[in-house]
């Protein structure tokens, strides 16, 4: 037993010194391998975190958004609908919203302008999201202008910046007072963009929606689950592009492993022959080489995964920005909530470390079962 343990010690020692002997080659290997893991892991972590983020955002979203439809198109909703809605059983609260999109030709971006009761704003004050602040170069206390629908420019003062948890939704947001909003848009008193409602019992959402349509036939309720689905499909589309990246990385990995599997250098073969000739068992040689491969792939995996973790969660996935940005000028600089999924980690491990190790061990096995007399030539 003691001899067995000592033997393993010798094997590991020898493995480490083997690795050191071919430092250049092994470092190169580590870098290529690590990069591939980095790419794969980045994609996995990123898409997963993004979905989670979207889920979190929508948790705070209203259960039902009620719009008025005129001739099949979204129209302004009268404020007195609020009373009618509140009298429906199961409705826990309502709120009329005023919001819309404003195009800023100076930067070519669309802002979402919104009235909110959460901020006490006077007629010439606004609160803006981080993306707008960045793109327009305005900070707290600076002036900020918006063009009305009729073409007139109004100047506001930036009261503060939004520091929302999730920049994903707040980046292009401009909060404004109701008075200013009505001036900008010309929407008369007593009209709203839409109405949001809270439902007392989540299981009654469907029922409440039906009652709404029955009582106010010119309205259309939009449920949170439906929004969730739209969100999902947007992310799915973006993921598609990322998926291409992923395939690329996988392909690189296959080529890389294939190269390993296709043979040993003459020097490596010779070394295996020497070890066998001086009395190493085939099993000893295999174990030693197995450790060699395992150490490389394990370190590459760890390094690549760590780098991907930092990339996705602490640098807002800078490398993916061009892909995900798409048409959005106001790309959110969001910090995703760090999250590691055990199953995902295991999958990635299984699809990289495992095939690599097998790929390295096959030619070694072939070399180590042949008679070692070739080294005498």
């Amino acid at each position, binding site marked *: 037993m003691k001899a067995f343990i000592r033997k393993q010690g010798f094997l590991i020692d020898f493995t480490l010194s083997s690795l050191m002997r071919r430092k250049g080659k092994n470092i190169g290997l580590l870098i290529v391998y690590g990069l591939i893991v980095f790419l794969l892991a980045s994609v996995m972590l990123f898409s997963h975190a993004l979905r989670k983020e979207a889920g979190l955002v929508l948790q705070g979203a209203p259960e039902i958004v009620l719009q008025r439809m005129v001739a099949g198109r979204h129209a302004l909703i009268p404020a007195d609908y609020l009373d009618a809605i509140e009298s429906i059983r199961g409705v826990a609260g309502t709120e009329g919203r005023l919001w819309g999109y404003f195009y800023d030709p100076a930067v070519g971006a669309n802002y979402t302008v919104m009235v909110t009761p959460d901020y006490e704003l006077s007629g010439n004050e606004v609160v803006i999201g981080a993306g707008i602040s960045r793109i327009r170069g305005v900070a707290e206390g600076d002036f900020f202008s918006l063009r009305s629908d009729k073409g007139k420019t109004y100047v506001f003062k930036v009261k503060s910046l939004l520091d929302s948890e999730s920049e994903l939704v707040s980046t292009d947001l401009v909060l404004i007072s109701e008075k200013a909003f009505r001036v900008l848009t010309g929407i008369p008193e007593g009209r709203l963009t839409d109405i949001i409602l809270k439902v007392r019992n989540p299981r009654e959402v469907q029922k409440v929606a039906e009652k709404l349509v029955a009582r106010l036939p010119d309205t259309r309720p939009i449920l949170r689950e439906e929004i969730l689905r739209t969100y999902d499909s947007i992310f799915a589309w973006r993921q598609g592009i990322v998926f291409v990246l992923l395939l690329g990385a996988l392909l690189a990995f296959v080529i890389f492993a294939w190269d390993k599997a296709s043979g040993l250098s003459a020097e490596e073969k010779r070394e295996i022959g020497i070890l066998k000739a*001086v*009395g190493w068992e085939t099993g000893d040689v295999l174990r030693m080489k197995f450790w060699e491969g395992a150490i490389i792939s394990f370190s590459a995996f760890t390094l690549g995964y760590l780098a991907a973790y930092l990339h996705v969660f602490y640098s807002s996935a800078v490398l993916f920005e061009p892909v995900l940005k798409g048409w959005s000028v106001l790309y959110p600089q969001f910090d995703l909530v760090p999250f590691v999924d055990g199953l995902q980690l295991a999958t990635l491990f299984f699809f990289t470390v495992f095939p690599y190790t097998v790929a390295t061990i096959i030619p070694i096995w072939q070399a180590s079962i042949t008679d070692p007399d070739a080294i005498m030539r």
Partner: protein
Amino acid sequence: MRIELSNIEKIFNRGRHNEFRAIRDVSMEIAPNRITCLKGASGSGKTTLLSMIGCLSRPTSGRILLGERMISGLPERFLTDIRRHTFGFVFQRFNLIQGLTVLDNIMIPAYPLGLDHGELKRSAKLLLKQFGLERVSNNPVQWLSGGEAQRVAICRALINDPGVLLADEPTANLDLKNSREFMELIGNLSESGKTILMTSHDPLVYESPVVDEVVEMHDGQIMVK
């Protein structure tokens, strides 16, 4: 230990168009505690025969007896064991592992035995001292001269204290001075009780007074004296 070969044949690439009979019906005996030299022109089959005796390859047919034990036809597992305990090899091209130190190279054959590390190191150092290699013991082997490299190869062959030392063309890569030193060294080893089998086409080896027996080979056969 006595080694006996009877009707040994070695056919390379058997059944293919390049089939080649390297050893034909060789029967011989290698006396224990003696120095035997296989002599012959290049290509006469000396190395092939030596590697079969040392269990690095198997004869196509025939029997090899090691003491009372028949070793031709044993499975790989047993051959490894015999290689480890009975034979020490000194290869023509030395075959040291590049990048490792002299000391590490010498200890490699002992690793699978799982000996105590300190003890192993002590015996390795003792060998190095015996062969005048103390000074270079921590140098990587690629720094060694030809003579030093061969002495390291001999130390490696001796680390597991085998009964038989096999050396293939031991002076092929040495100058005259180192060759003479080698023969002297071999003489000493023989006196200490080792059986030594060498191949060579160098007269300095087969005409040396330390060699007890010379066996001449030609075209894969042993020439009758």
